[in-house]
């Protein structure tokens, strides 16, 4: 299964757009890319999922180039409450089986 690599940490000022890129060079045709957010002492929370091109929801956008070897999570106008760890995840499922690779996470610190 595709190994994921993402930056260990990032800093941003409030109100800025933040882009976190994850590389997954060995992604396979049926794999999906998902991003989760985790606050301290809590379980991860789903942010967004995509397969290719661009996906947007009320909290984020996900950009996936044509070769799908990377993906970029975009958080518009971050606030202090966006300080968290963001995980990139590649998921593969088949008949009764499930494989995934979580990245080690990017710790985002939003500065006032």
């Amino acid at each position: 299964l595709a190994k994921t690599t993402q930056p260990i940490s990032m800093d941003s000022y409030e109100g800025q757009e933040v882009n976190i890129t994850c590389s997954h060079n060995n992604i396979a045709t049926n794999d999906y890319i998902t991003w989760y957010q985790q606050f301290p002492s809590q379980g991860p929370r789903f942010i967004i999922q995509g397969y290719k091109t661009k996906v947007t929801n009320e909290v984020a956008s996900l950009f996936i180039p044509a070769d799908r070897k990377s993906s970029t999570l975009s958080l518009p106008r971050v606030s202090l409450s966006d300080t968290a760890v963001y995980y990139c995840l590649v998921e593969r499922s088949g008949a009764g089986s499930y494989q995934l690779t979580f990245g080690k996470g990017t710790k985002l610190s939003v500065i006032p």
Partner: protein
Amino acid sequence: GAGVSQSPSNKVTEKGKDVELRCDPISGHTALYWYRQSLGQGLEFLIYFQGNSAPDKSGLPSDRFSAERTGGSVSTLTIQRTQQEDSAVYLCASSFQGGNQETQYFGPGTRLLVL
């Protein structure tokens, strides 16, 4: 309805003892997942249950780890003869049907400390 719940929230045990961790998934969710998160690390997939199919145990780190899911609902993760390196947060998640196109809903985790 209620989210995923896990118990206990914290567990301290002595090396060599067995522990059982419980997960109550969201009602109606047929897929259930267990993960381990060591201090400062990402999530390590352990096991996956989907409906009545045999579980995918490919992520279990050793034969000391086992999991059951009774009646397609509650799941128990058992760690036998605990070791200090088993200390971690054990997270459970559930999703409606399972698979790579669904949202997983995570519980708050059980923090296990092996002395």
